[in-house]
Each structure stands twice: as C-alpha cells, then as structure tokens.
C-alpha cells in the first residue's frame, strides 16, 4: 500500500511551486510512471468493458473489485503475521510480500473468484446475482475486519480509504510496479487483438458459437481471467470501489453513438484513454484524488454522448 499520506504535501507543493506540468514530467519520474500505468490500465479496462456490458456481466466486475479489496486485506495480514514472527527469513519474505502483495496474493484470489462467479452467472439454477452480492459484501466486511485486526500502519482509515478509492497510490508507484503493470496490460491488449473475432462471436451468440464447434467455455474462462487481471491492475489507479466505473462508463458512452462492434471497441478505448489522461493531469494540478477525477471525466463524457445521441436520434 505504501504511504500515500507522505506524498500528499509533496504533490501539492509540486503543483503549486512548479506550476507547470511539463516540469513535473521532466523532474518527477512518478508522474511519468502514473501516466504510463494509468493510460495502459484505462485502455485494458475499456476493451474489457464492451463484452462485459454486452453480456450483462457488469455486476461481476463490481463484485470482483470487492473481492480484490478483501484479498488486499488478507495480503496485509499475511505480511503482518510474518513480521510478528520476527525471524530474519520471515522478515525477508514479509518485505517481498509487502512490495508485491498487490499481485502475489491478490491476483490468484481474484482470478479464482472470477472463474467461480462467471460459472454461477451461466448456471441459471443458482441465483447468479445473489451469489455475486453475497461474495462482494462478504469480502468487504471480512476485508475491513482483517485490516483493523492486523494493521500495517497506524493510519487504518487512511489505508482503507486509499484501498477503496485509490486516492494517491497511483503516484507512489515504483519502477518495478510500472514494469509489472505494463507487462500485464500488454498481455491483456494482445489477447484482445488475437481473439477479437472469437470474443465477438461468443459475446453476440454463445449458443451458436458453441454449436459451430468453438470451445466457448475456454473463452469465458479467458474473459474471467482478464477481468481479474484488469481489476487487480486498476486497483492501483482508481481503488476497488471505482473500478467498475472505469470498466463500464467508456463502453456505455461508446454504445450511445456507435453501431458496430469494432467502432464501439475503438471509441471506448479512445474515450477511456483521454479521460484517464485528463483525470491524471487535473489531479496533479489541483491535488484531487486521481481515481475520482478520472471517473468524473468518464461521467462527463457519458452525459455528453447521451446528449449527442438524443439530439441525433431526434433529427
């Protein structure tokens, strides 16, 4: 989780004293890191958003982000437990985990939950929405409980807040985080390009695709894994409560205007990247929380697109 509080004054003075974004980019590597990671995450989540929204799976993204919150709490607790054992070996392991626990523990837990949730979503006998609601609020409650019981810092509410809303954690990334994020984002984007036609076919008509001999189950599994990866990535940028906004808003905005799958995908990606860039810059200049600023930009674009669509439909 790092120490978001420490960076807060630094960010503010930077924005005030330098006054110039260009200088910030040149002088502060973390601003560049935030920009690279932010744009990559925005791109991934917007690509994923289109099939998720069309398959009526938006709620699964929301549920999973809460699971990721619980997983982060478990990660912190494991770190805490290893530290309290006190031996040098355990301490070393604790260090490794606290640097990378956002992926080492959170990713596997989220991937498994994603697979389970998409399974129940397909099975109409089990109430899919109830299962998602149960898992998501359950994770929130247990996560908060664990965070309070095994605090990693003295500022518990600060930790919880930054996990839920992202606050400034995007500006505290290290180079290793940036590389990890970039590799995972690149993998997601390449998968989308390589399997574009299959994703379209499975999203539009799963029964037909299955009947024509394509292993639709494998593509659903792939979607589940990608959803989990994107959520774990996006956690850094906007925090776990706001992830679904990053996933669904660009897709919904694009669908207001565009009428083919490809144009919706492209438009969604463009909207998301522009909003993320705009949000990050604004949040640096005005010291606003990064995640909420990006989501606010997404909402503004959605309203604009809705307006445009209402006007063009009337004509």
């Amino acid at each position: 989780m790092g120490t978001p509080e420490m960076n807060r004054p630094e960010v503010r003075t930077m924005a005030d004293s330098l006054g110039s974004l260009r200088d910030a980019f040149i002088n502060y590597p973390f601003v560049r890191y935030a920009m690279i990671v932010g744009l990559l995450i925005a791109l991934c989540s917007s690509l994923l958003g289109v099939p998720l929204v069309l398959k009526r799976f938006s709620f699964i993204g929301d549920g999973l982000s809460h699971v990721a919150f619980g997983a982060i709490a478990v990660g912190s607790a494991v770190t805490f437990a290893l530290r309290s054992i006190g031996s040098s070996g355990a301490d070393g392991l604790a260090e490794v985990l606290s640097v990378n626990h956002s992926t080492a523990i959170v990713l596997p837990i989220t991937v498994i939950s994603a697979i389970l949730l998409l399974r129940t979503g397909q099975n109409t006998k089990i109430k899919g929405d109830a299962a998602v609601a149960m898992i998501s609020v359950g994770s929130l409650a247990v996560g908060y409980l664990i965070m309070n019981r095994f605090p990693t810092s003295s500022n518990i509410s600060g930790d919880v807040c930054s996990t839920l809303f992202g606050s400034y954690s995007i500006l505290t990334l290290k180079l290793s985080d940036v590389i990890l994020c970039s590799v995972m984002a690149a993998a997601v984007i390449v998968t989308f390009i390589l399997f574009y036609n299959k994703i379209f076919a499975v999203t539009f008509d799963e029964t037909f695709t299955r009947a024509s001999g394509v292993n639709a189950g494998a593509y659903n599994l792939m979607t589940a894994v990608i959803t989990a990866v994107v959520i774990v990535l996006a956690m850094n940028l906007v925090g776990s409560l706001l992830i679904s906004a990053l996933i669904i808003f660009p897709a919904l905005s694009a669908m207001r205007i565009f009428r083919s799958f490809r144009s919706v995908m492209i438009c969604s990606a463009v909207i998301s990247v522009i909003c993320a860039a705009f949000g990050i810059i604004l949040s640096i200049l005005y010291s606003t929380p990064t995640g909420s600023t990006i989501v606010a930009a997404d909402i503004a674009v959605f309203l604009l697109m809705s307006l445009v669509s209402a006007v063009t439909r009337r004509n």
Partner: protein
Amino acid sequence: MPENTEKKENKIQLACRRASLGYEGRVVAEELSFEVHEGDYLCIIGENGSGKSTLVKAILGLKPQLSGEIEWLGGVSPSQIGYLPQQTVVQRDFPASVREIVRSGCVSKSGLRPFYSLAEKDLAEQNMALLGITDLAKRCYRDLSGGQQQRVLLARALCAAQKMLLLDEPVTGLDPKAQLDLYELIRELNKKGITIIMVSHDVAAAVRYSSHILHIGSRRQLFFGTSQEYRESEVGRSFLAAEGTYGYPGDEQTGGEDNG
C-alpha cells in the same frame, strides 16, 4: 408440397436410434428414432416442454443423449450444421453491423487464426447476396426488422455450413408477412440442396412446407414419416383438426407409463 419424398436413395446424414434425452437425470423425451437424408426438409413439432429444444441440443452435440444413438453420416458432423438459435435478449440491443455478424459464422473455420481470411470474407458476402441483405451490410443489427434479423442470422448459419441448417422456431415473433417470406426463403434454400431441420409449433406450415415430420408428444415420439403420411395418420389428423389448441386425443394416456 413435399419435394424430396421419392428420392429415397439420397445419403443418410443423421440417424437417431432409440435416443433418450433429458438433463440432470430427468427424462424429457425417450425412444426417439428418425433419419435425415440429404436434401430432406424435416419439421420437428410438439407442444412446449416436449423436449424439442433438448433434441436440438443433442443434435448439435451440446448435450449428450442419456441412452440410444445419434449418429452422423455422409461427412456431416455437429459442428458443420448451420444453426439458427432462438433470439436472445442480449441480441436485441447489440451494437454490431450486419457484416460483422454474418462473418462471425466463419468463427469455427478460422480456427486459431486471429483474423478472417479473404475466402471467409468472400463467403460472407456471397451468403449476404443469397439472402438479399447485401444493402444492409453496414446497418446496425438492432435497427433491423425481425424478418431482416432472421435473414442475417440465416446468412451467418450458411457461413458455418453449406450442407445442413438447423432452425429453432425461426418464425416466432415475426408478423404474418415476414413469416411467409421466411418460409419461402427456407424452401428456396432447401431446393438448392441444403438439408433443413426445423423446430416449429406451426403445424399447418410444417405440413405445407416440409418433406418429413417428427412429432414428439409428452415424453415420447408420436410420429415420424413423410408429411403426406402424417396428414393421413391418426395423430396428424387429430392434431391438424385440433390445431391451435393444446392437448389432443391420444396424449393423455401416454403421460405415465410408456417405457417400452
């Protein structure tokens, strides 16, 4: 009028022998036996809950039969059927162009190749021309009429397979004019040599257009044969007479004990 009844020498493509169907241990239809020959137009009729859709899934190889045999012959396999499923809610407001949807019929042919080949794109254009929807290619699917949407899905099905089409309640939800158009279109495709299997609850149209009828009652097969034979059979006569009403003589007695 049945067109292919006399061409008995045509190759068998699908043979179903004493197949029992069901899911999760519950039998919905048993002792189904029928054959489909090349160029046939088979209509599967029966009221709701008679296992028609389970039979469709079994034919497609999506849900294995509980017992008995479903055999594919003459170089046809489940994945080579052009399938026209019932429409889903998802599709009603899906942002996709007609061309994108028709091309997606080639998804199985393209294998692991990420993009469609020129030949596959050509095939999509040919099938759009065949069904008279070339001028709709760039239109959005959700803006089309019900009849046009079915033509798009038929073109997609033809991209998946040229030998056989399996149509699941294709005219449901269409207005009478669009229903007639679609029936005529399917008849044209059948005349071109494409085998048709259609699930329907429109018995009058089934008898008028198809060459063979498979009638499934509650849990068991009531009739299989040519449409001509069906019209003359007791089951067919009583069903055609009672058309438009559910339940008819002969069905009540079969409810409980029909394990032969």
